[in-house]
């Protein structure tokens, strides 16, 4: 992607589908239509930014870390809060002390 890509991507149906995938969301057809319309209006509002030239502005000059006065020491600490955490895990195996999730690797499709 070139550095001159100040282009603004148009929000099409296909692009919204890509954004859903990136955001790990899914929209039904009705939501898709509704969101596309609303998002186009929101992106139109962002065109106001074209009014101002920011070529000489260092975008890092305001960051929350400007206000950081100290950081914690980089020391290893061990916490054992499995009991507390297990109380609100959706599925938890107390014997193995593991959170249960669906398979990450789909072994049925392996050759």
């Amino acid at each position: 992607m070139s550095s001159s890509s100040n282009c603004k991507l148009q929000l099409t149906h296909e692009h919204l589908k890509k954004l859903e995938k990136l955001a790990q969301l899914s929209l039904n057809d009705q939501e898709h239509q509704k969101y596309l319309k609303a998002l186009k209006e929101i992106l139109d509002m962002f065109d106001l930014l074209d009014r101002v030239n920011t070529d000489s502005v260092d975008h890092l000059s305001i960051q929350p870390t400007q206000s950081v006065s100290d950081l914690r020491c980089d020391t290893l600490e061990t916490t054992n809060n499995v009991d507390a955490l297990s109380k609100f895990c959706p599925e938890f195996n107390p014997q193995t002390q593991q959170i249960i999730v669906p398979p990450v690797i789909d072994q049925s499709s392996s050759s």
Partner: protein
Amino acid sequence: MHRLTISEMARMLKQGDCSSVELTQHFLDRIETYDTKINSFVTVCPEQALRAAEAADQQLSTGSPTSPLLGIPIAHKDLFSTEGVLTTSCSKMLANYTPPYTATCVEKLNQAGMVMLGKTNMDEFAMGSSNETSYFGPCCNPWNTEYVPGGSSGGSAAAVAAGLVPATTGTDTGGSIRLPAAYCGITGIKPTYGRVSRWGMTAFASSLDQAGPMAQNAYDCALILETMAGHDAQDATSLNTPVPHYIKDLNQPLEGLRIGLPEEFFSDQLNPEINQILHQTIETLKELGMSVQSVTLPNSALCIPIYYILAPAEASSNLARFDGVRYGYRCKDPASIEDLYIRSRAEGFGDEVKRRIIVGTHVLSSGAYNAYYQKAQKVRTLIKHDFDQVFSQVDVVFAPTAPSTAFKIGEKVDDPISMYLCDIYTTAANLAELPALTAPAGFHQGLPVGFQLIGGHLEEYKLLHIAHQLQQVTDFHQQHPADFDFEEG
């Protein structure tokens, strides 16, 4: 008792005119009687509250209260983690989540002896300006229950306005303390970014979020802020600077202080009657000895677009943790790990949250990042410089809090842009990391109007001072809505 301010309650407790248990039970009874009208609470914890009140009474009986807040009831916005008490961020995603720890600023108030009555309603994940996106139903404005209380800290504002609790905590990312405080006729302050620890606060936009108190007047806000504020080693953005004794100089005169009126904020976008009410407040401040001059914030028109680029961008990152794996809502019978993520999030989040995640994902995506996110960060720098310039000329900025009074429930829910424009005067302070306060200025057609003060970095004391002095010569902060029995007790 619900007409009393915190300082008046503290005096009664110290003198033994009432006990914390009596005070706590009084407010618990009021919540049970009146909260069905406004839906300001999502969780009430009467047993825990009364235990805390008993402990406070024991401390009070020694004759030496450790804090002016000892035994005083409070409620917390439902995104502050409270150990053992549901903390939902008013989302289906966290509807059954009980944290194993307590947020730092809440713990500080607990240590001071405040009595938590419960958790208050809010827009889902703090995304909203009307408290209509809550999974637990909208909150209503006590001044007229057909109207919104403002958001996202709507429940916190409404509960104080209705006399269900003397003070609450709220959070402010783009105006979420100030807007509901203005709509509900109470006082609220968003401190300087980093003044109050964000540890234990469900994150929305980490470079903008800040917690603060909401109460009936500036003095009570000052009392609470002094306890909430302070460095926290668990929050790398919390400022390691001493917390002033905010109430110490509240009674000093205002002579010599200079107010700036941004010409961009007093344009025809502001309702003319509200403009008139605010100018009456300015006249009162002049009578108190302040001088007034016009200032300019030339990039302020860009606050809304850059806020709605940066905040959703940060939210899309912060809400990535909600994936149905370790906590929160998990969809039924996920077919695969991808299905788990996608359906848990699609089913667990509401519309506005999903919309902002999508916007945030878009502005951070390859091809859009330069045009949106990076540009917005640069403009944010310009806005900060605008304020630096202004504060070389004046001590505080006086501004409207909102372009109008509260609007009807449902009026803007299908028009996101119209909703976003409610924040037109509030986002600037968040973007510039500056403190800002709202207090009542009057009424328009039966609904409260608020004024806003914006101060320099760590100058909360100036804002509280000015608001307190104003509240010595006006009584808007002492007006109460009609249907909540303020005539009795």
